[in-house]
């Protein structure tokens, strides 16, 4: 059965190539730190499963120290794309390989799960979308190499350029997820749920519903992840105070409660992969630019969601 492991290996080796390329450009402190950072990330990506958890933890702490040193960043301010572009006019067909990745991802995840070899599933169905995306990315790389006749090392050069643009922010989402597991095991969620129930007049139905939604949003902002908030806040506030005490509809409560959490994700710097990482990817001057654009969106959707929820949850 095909899992994601081979793709982790490929990705890890690619990151190590990026490190070699950065190191090959010179031996300043910046290059040492930067190369070491990407090499360590490559190792944890490729061999995370076989390495001892504490060793990976050590690698993570090392990467964080390297990032905190301030040396893991691009060498020169990124020049405007126009200056760099080769004069070859390939036209709009350049967009086809770019669209290959998502389309193969979609078609692949639908088809791959149905292929059976000797009665056994050919791929791990829970990982099907990512495996398909991996195939799409490989296909797109081959196609674009053929189309542009680029030298074989070109993807590494361009890849390392973009990796350095994103910089250390690339591991923030993973690190936050790891922080989430520590929070869960230390029992942070129960403490928060306890505080809310003590301090609010939750015998009034709409107060209980509002407390649930605000709890979902605030806890999501703190954790950067609505899924982590859902079980804690629903068990702590939603089920006892809205469903059991006031007879609210659990399906409506859960569905819209999760969406209230997503509003929190929109404005949480902890959900870095949705705002800080794309901001770096788009080379925005202000790293909080996406958060600022999303603040009014999130507030408006949160209010609409809360209104619909209060109106519907006790009626249906």
């Amino acid at each position, binding site marked *: 059965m095909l899992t994601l492991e081979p793709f982790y290996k490929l990705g890890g080796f690619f990151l190590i190539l990026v490190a070699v390329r950065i190191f090959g450009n010179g031996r300043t402190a910046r290059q040492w730190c930067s190369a070491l950072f990407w090499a360590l990330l490559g190792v944890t990506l490729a061999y995370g499963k076989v390495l001892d*958890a504490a060793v990976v933890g050590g690698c993570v702490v090392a990467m964080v120290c390297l990032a905190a040193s301030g040396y893991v960043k691009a060498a020169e301010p990124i020049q405007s794309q126009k200056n760099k572009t080769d004069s070859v006019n390939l036209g709009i067909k350049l967009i086809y390989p770019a669209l290959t990745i998502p389309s193969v991802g979609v078609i692949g995840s639908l088809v791959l799960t149905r292929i059976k070899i000797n009665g056994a599933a050919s791929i791990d169905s829970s990982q099907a979308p990512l495996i398909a995306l991996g195939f799409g990315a*490989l296909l797109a*790389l081959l196609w674009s190499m053929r189309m542009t006749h680029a030298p074989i090392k070109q993807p590494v050069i361009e890849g390392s350029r973009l990796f350095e643009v994103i910089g250390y922010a690339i591991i923030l989402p993973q690190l936050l997820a790891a922080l989430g597991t*520590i929070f869960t095991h*230390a029992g942070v969620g129960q403490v928060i749920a306890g505080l809310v129930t003590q301090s609010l007049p939750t015998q009034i139905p709409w107060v209980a519903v509002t407390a649930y939604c605000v709890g979902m949003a605030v806890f999501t902002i703190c954790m950067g992840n609505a899924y982590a908030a859902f079980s804690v806040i629903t068990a702590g506030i939603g089920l006892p105070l809205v469903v059991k005490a006031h007879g609210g509809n659990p399906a409506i409560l*859960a569905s819209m409660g999760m969406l209230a959490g997503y509003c929190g994700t929109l404005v949480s710097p902890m959900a870095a992969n949705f705002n800080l990482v794309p*901001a770096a*990817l788009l080379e925005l001057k202000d790293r909080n630019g996406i958060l600022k654009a999303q603040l009014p969106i999130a507030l408006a959707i949160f209010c*609409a969601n809360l209104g619909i929820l209060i109106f519907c949850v006790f009626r249906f």
Partner: protein
Amino acid sequence: MLKLIGIGIVALGFACEVNPLLVVVLAGFATGLVGGMSLHTILMELGTGFVKNRSILLPVVMILPTMGLLEKYGLKIQAQALIRKMKHATAGHVILAYTAIRQISISVGLNFGGHASMIRPVIAPMAEGAALSQNPTISEKLLDSVKAHASAAENTGAFFGEDIFIAVGGVVLMHNFFEAEGMKVGLWSIALWGIPTALAAFCVMTWRCYLLDKRIALEGYEVDKNATKKC
């Protein structure tokens, strides 16, 4: 109460713009120590959590080399040129159209898109191109805001569309939660109740895109008039 120290560290750290990685690791160690874990256990938790979530990193690593290559050969400029050919397309139209496509496709289980695979190479340059033809003298700050709105469309579209589809993580997670609590709550009823807010989210995006277009037009009001006549 002391267990909340991690949240305090995170909030303070982000507010003071300390290196975010450092903040998160410190918060993890502080919470773990207060919660009675040993240093070795915390290191193990950190490693396990990091490896378990490698799947977050993988798409970016797989996609970036190709995107970098295509960019070098002019993908961004092509996407911008394509949108310039549509005379009346505004940045707001591009972003709103993407929001709709994203919401509808993900609500039937088609999860294409993403910041690395769609926004940076295709949607952001298109929106930028449209903004530039609306107002050739647009300030860099407003152009950055256009790009930020393209990313916001990706997030809003994905978040407020995906829970309408029953096979995604969120809906299954809710269903499993109630099952563990001994309650029967159907997958479909959870999914269908995602629709009202999805519609509300689209209305909000319509409002934001309208405002964005207005800001672009306002900034270069005079120049804008002449420019649209020429192209």
